[in-house]
């Protein structure tokens, strides 16, 4: 066997070296290879902050930094869940659907202006359970029906959206529970509670990724599913758990979004999916799976949020902002992806 694998390996080595002559490879070696590249997102973030602060000193005012943290809370919580899915090499398009289901549950079960329910924090718990259940179903659909996660979660997106619009009767319902609203309004050490919740979500995700078997197995599946399976990883169980975990984070994000807006309506999730995917990818997690992690995603979320905030501060026309953001994504990904190892970019 070893005799057969030896020549195979050397062939791939040759391929790798010929690749070094490609432009990105050359740039990469110029800057010192892999280690530099893994720091690229952080460098982008720092440069971005510096540029904006020079152009408009208001950027580093405490008030603006608090605003920045506050607007990063929901995207960060969402992106934490999404990171695990993307690490597996899958994709979760149900972000908006799950978020709107969770927001709908919390609003309808806590004090609101539509029905007589007033379950207080039980509503929050129920919302997070609902989010987790949505993710669990996504995982089951993907693994049991054996369809690509892209389509399984696309279906769950529509189901979640339809369910929440149906339950809300197509209108916006206000959240009147004062203690849940506190999540967005009350502050601890100068920061809104939502920011602390998001920080907690980040720490939890970091612990799961770096210190649990689940985290390791998710990375292993993303690296090479066949190898993971042969090494004794229960791929189906890990996949379903990962989707449920993502749903858990989306559920928390739904509660935060409902608390921030003080209501839930049909379009509460609009635009959040692509924002979350952008953050994960800009942070340097590869869509092919097996590379990156929640720390990358934290940086990615900050890049996207700082950029949006900075463009408002610099008075850039809102019409052009999307264009700038698009160019930023290309630049960040082109710089940071470890493409020398990837011969095939799909």
């Amino acid at each position, binding site marked *: 066997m070893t005799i057969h694998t030896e020549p195979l390996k050397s062939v791939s080595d040759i391929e790798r070296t010929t690749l070094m002559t490609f432009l990105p490879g050359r740039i990469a070696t110029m800057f010192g290879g892999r280690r530099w590249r893994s720091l690229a997102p952080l460098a982008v973030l720092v440069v971005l902050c510096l540029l904006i602060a020079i152009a408009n000193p208001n950027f580093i005012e405490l008030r603006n930094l608090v605003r920045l943290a506050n607007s990063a809370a929901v995207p960060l919580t969402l992106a934490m869940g999404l990171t695990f899915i993307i690490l597996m090499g899958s994709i979760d398009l149900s972000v908006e659907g799950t978020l709107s289901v969770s927001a709908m549950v919390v609003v309808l079960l806590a004090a609101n202006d539509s029905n007589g329910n007033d379950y207080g924090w039980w509503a929050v718990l129920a919302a997070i359970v609902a989010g987790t259940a949505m993710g669990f179903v996504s995982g089951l659909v993907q693994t049991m029906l054996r369809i*690509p996660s892209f389509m399984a979660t*696309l279906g769950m997106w*529509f189901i979640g959206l339809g369910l929440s619009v149906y339950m809300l009767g197509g209108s916006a319902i206000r959240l009147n529970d004062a203690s849940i609203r506190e999540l967005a309004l009350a502050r601890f050490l100068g920061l809104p509670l939502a920011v602390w919740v998001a920080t907690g979500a980040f720490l939890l995700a970091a612990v799961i990724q770096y210190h649990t078997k689940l985290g390791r197995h998710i990375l292993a599946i993303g690296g090479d599913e066949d190898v993971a399976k042969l090494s004794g990883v229960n791929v189906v169980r890990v996949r379903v758990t990962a989707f449920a975990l993502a749903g858990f984070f989306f559920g928390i994000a739904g509660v935060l979004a409902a608390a921030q807006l003080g209501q839930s309506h049909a379009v509460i999730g609009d635009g959040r999916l692509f924002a979350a995917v952008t953050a994960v990818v800009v942070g340097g997690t590869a869509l092919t799976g097996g590379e990156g992690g929640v720390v990358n995603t934290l940086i990615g979320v900050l890049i996207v949020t700082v950029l949006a905030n900075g463009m408002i501060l610099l008075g850039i026309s809102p*019409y*052009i902002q999307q*264009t700038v953001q698009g160019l930023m994504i290309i630049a960040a990904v082109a710089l940071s992806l470890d493409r020398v190892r990837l011969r*095939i970019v799909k």
Partner: protein
Amino acid sequence: MNEAFSLRRIFEGKWTQGAIPLVLLVALLLIIEIAAPGFLTGETVALLFANTAVLFILATGVTFAILLGGIDLSIQAVASLASVILAQLLPSLGLAAFPVAILSGFAFGTLSGIVHVKLRVPSFVATLATGGVVTGIALWVSDGRAITIEEGGRENTAWINATVAGLPVVVLISAVIGIASFLALRYTRFGRQAIAVGAGEPAAWAAGINVDRTKIIAFAASGMLAAIAGVVLAARLSSGSPVLANQLLLPAIAAVIVGGTAITGGLGGVARTAVGALIISIVRIGMTFVGVNIFLENMVFGAVLIAAVAITIDRSKIAVIK
């Protein structure tokens, strides 16, 4: 035991896999006809085809990208930009506005391809980003508003809304595009190479196929077809807007997958996409016909989508389902 085995063999046979989406299409038609008699009349069917046209043209474009193993998420933005350009230029340029709008799609499709291939950015991210760039340009050009195509311009779009021998012109346009794409994929060097790249990129590369060029052509085709879809949509709605096609991206991709094209690439084609687009369209229109609660429509659609993919997808050629 023996019987089950042979049944399974039939199901895994090559021609049955290809026929499953078609069978599903017919079954859906029959279900709706039984639930709401009067669905299968010439008039409704013509309407169904006309309503599917835009979705089908978009889906045909994205079929090229998916066959390569990539994806094109910029089609909605490109289609919307084309509608804006058409609405802006019709008063001054007349019919010449059509080629300008379509060429814009070709240009941005090529740009997506170049970003994807030359900067080695995954197509998912590359097209997501170029989609953002294009949307920004469309917002800027239109000043963020919808532009109505006025009386004068409508003279030049009337031909799209006309009928020839009982068939709406949009159906004829999509038929021509569908047949041309079908022939291009099956009988041209580009088409065969695209399928080869999707089936196994290292092998295609080793066989001497210019992978980069094939990919750029495919994305250019996708952009151009998206622009044609945008132009047709603008003519039908007599308006151009930077968000005109925003609801069409995911249904278009769903149409491709439901038709049985593998999202991993290398397997499928335009004929499958035509069936897929009809399935998506029939489910949408059928729900209105059968009288599904309007708030529940999305839920039913999502469930049907999952069921349809579970039935139609050809798993025998996908090693790992991600």
